[in-house]
């Protein structure tokens, strides 16, 4: 078999196994192991691949960002900072048609800057903003759609587990990836707000809702006490990274400590909740990093097979255009996004496309943002859309079916796709902040 055939066959095998329900890291590891064994007819070499991937992969200093930002995100969720920001936002947007929806987007954008995962965002806002939207007679589909759509901001606006994963696979600086995520994340939030306004204007029944007349304006003191802790945390973390005072790892640790202090001062956390946050951090870290380790077995297998070399030669010989490659890339991500989670998509497609993209002189930080935004669309698409699952599970309300969540999220997935196309066409949107 040629490297290209092995590469294609292994990708197909991995996708099928994952679809059948095989644990994702096991699917990646087993397929890679078997591929090497067959390809070189050498069992020892396959074992050696396991050895080097295991000792080489976890021992990465920047990986400490995963537990540190996860822990920080869990603490701020438990301390109720997401709900606080949301209350302030919804008092601000109260007069606009679809205002609570816009407030949800805004609060998500702010909360995203202190949490690293879309799942945290989805579960927090399903709890605080969906009930309120239903109370004001918003269309349930719209209500859950807004929460699902804006939850993806959690992984585009830094800190973000997905940006960390990409930076590892593509060997880019975590700090650069974080900074590059800021503008695309804010753009997406603004596009959502704009889309909600348009929906309210042209499809008022899809949005629903009535003006919140009984809403009282929050006093300034309360606005301050509800937003300052979050803003302070954002300044420490993103400010620390932007100015270079802190490495991303240090920013994560400092952020975790500050979040802990905030929640203690406000008496928002019990010892049990604290311990559970630590436990959950460990579980998330172990499952993400084991996944990354397995993915590195896979990408090394592709390397040994010589797939990157062959793809590079093919590209040189075919004069495929930038447009063709990006089109294939986006379609592939959307296709995989129907079934796979964001991390798996990144880990599968990036090693395949890097050897194509790098010689074209494209910026790999920009490519990472494209990848993360593209892969995150999958959070909103059926049959496997993790954000939608989380919302359905968190709401636990029989009146809202999973189908409602997916249908409600669809307009937001389309907005994401539009933003993705903009980001592809104008790399400066992503990269300007780095210079």
């Amino acid at each position, binding site marked *: 078999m040629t490297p290209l055939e092995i590469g294609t066959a292994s990708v197909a095998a991995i996708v099928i196994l994952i679809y059948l329900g095989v644990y994702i890291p096991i699917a990646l590891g087993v397929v890679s192991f078997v591929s090497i064994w067959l390809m070189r007819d050498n069992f020892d070499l396959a074992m*050696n691949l396991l050895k080097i991937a295991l000792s*080489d992969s976890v021992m990465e200093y920047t990986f400490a960002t995963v537990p540190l930002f996860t822990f920080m995100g869990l603490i701020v969720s438990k301390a109720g900072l997401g709900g606080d920001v949301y209350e302030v936002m919804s008092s601000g947007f109260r007069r606009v048609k679809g205002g609570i929806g816009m407030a949800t987007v805004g609060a998500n954008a702010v909360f995203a800057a202190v949490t690293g995962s879309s799942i945290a965002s989805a579960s927090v806002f399903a709890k605080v903003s969906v009930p309120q939207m239903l109370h004001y007679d918003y269309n349930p589909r719209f209500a859950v759609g807004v929460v699902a759509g804006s939850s993806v901001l959690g992984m585009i606006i830094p800190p973000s587990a997905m940006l960390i994963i990409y930076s590892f696979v593509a060997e880019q600086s975590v700090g650069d990836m974080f900074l590059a995520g800021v503008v695309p994340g804010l753009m997406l939030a603004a596009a959502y707000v704009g889309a909600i306004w348009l929906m309210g204007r042209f499809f008022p029944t899809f949005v629903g809702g009535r003006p919140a007349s009984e809403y009282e304006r929050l006093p300034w003191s309360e606005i301050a006490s509800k937003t300052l802790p979050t803003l302070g945390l954002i300044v420490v973390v993103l400010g620390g990274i932007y100015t*270079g005072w802190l490495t991303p790892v240090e920013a994560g640790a400092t952020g975790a400590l500050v979040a802990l202090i905030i929640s203690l001062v406000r008496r928002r956390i019990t010892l049990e909740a604290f311990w559970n946050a630590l436990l959950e951090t460990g579980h998330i870290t172990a499952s993400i990093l084991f996944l990354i380790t397995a993915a590195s077995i896979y990408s090394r297998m592709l*390397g*040994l097979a010589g797939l*990157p*070399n062959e793809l590079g030669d093919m590209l040189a010989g075919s004069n495929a255009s930038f447009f063709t490659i990006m089109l294939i890339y986006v379609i592939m991500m959307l296709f995989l996004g129907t079934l796979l989670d964001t991390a798996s998509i990144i880990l599968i497609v990036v090693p395949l496309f890097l050897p194509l993209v790098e010689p074209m002189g494209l910026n790999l930080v920009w490519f990472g943002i494209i990848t993360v935004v593209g892969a995150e669309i999958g959070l909103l698409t059926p049959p496997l859309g993790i954000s939608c699952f989380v919302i359905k599970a968190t709401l636990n309300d029989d009146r809202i079916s999973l189908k409602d969540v997916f249908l409600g999220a669809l307009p937001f997935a389309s907005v994401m796709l539009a933003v993705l196309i903009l980001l592809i066409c104008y790399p400066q949107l992503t990269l300007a902040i780095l210079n």
Partner: protein
Amino acid sequence: TETIKAVVIDGYPARALWVKEFSNFFIPEVDKILATTGNYQMDWQESYGGAIVKPKGVLEGVKLGLGDIGIVTTIFHSSKLPSQSISAVTPFIAPNSAAVARAVDEIAKEFPTMQKEFEKQNQVYLATGVVLDTYQVFSTTPIASPNDMMGAKVAGAGMNLRYLEGIENAAGVRGGLTDFYNMLQTGLVEKAILWPEAAKTFKIAEVAPYMLSVDLGAVNTKTVTVNADYWAKLPEEVQIALRDVAVMYRDHVAGLTMDRASASREAYVAAGGTIVEASQADREAWAAAMPNIAAEWAETLNAKGEPGTDMLQAYIGKLEAAGYTGVRDWAAE
């Protein structure tokens, strides 16, 4: 004509100087030599930049047969390859890549120690590479002598953090090359130890426009090795070609490094940097105040039954013969 497959690995990307020259110099030279008889032809698979291993994983990758030929970055492996630190533990001797590369390579070939260390890692030593001309001190504020470093925070990496033990109250701050710009800009550190080419690449002149030229010295960081099982199966003709070209590659890369070094100094000045030459007395004082890390190094090897002291003496002798005398005789104590 028999075709022989060779997988070449490095964790650094193809644009790195030594990787680029492996593609553009080493491989064509080997092909050229083999073509003269036409008995053998190589089928090269070049896998760089993390395709198979990361920079720290090359040693293990060649050991385990994931690559047939590798460019090992030796400074990551002070434990498995202790004798490779030979030039790092002898600062203030030779700010010349070519001289250091040749001296280290000759030590590797005249004494069994370095080759034995690689043998234990299941690989065959081919040649030493030197890709930095000499460490210097870069500062955010004007600097006239090493005394201006007292009490300062200084960014460094690896063995050069130990050089700082010779400066009163200087605190070494560890960082990767890519972090130095930020560290200097934010005032996290006031000084940094790196070499002029890196200073140019990372635009250090913008944040640390004062360079104290102290010539801490060139350091060997790369070694070309071959998996031992693979080597044993190679025909002698190919073995000889690889060995010969490895030595040519050693001198070729060191030469390019020196060319780049002077260009980098000029670029540093053009970008607004000022270079101050440290006086001989200052260099002597710094060296004298340092612990004798060369003697520590030799002791450690001696304790393992290796000729540490002899290697140290021979190495310093070779540099002296090449015209480089240090400000402190590390071997004399």
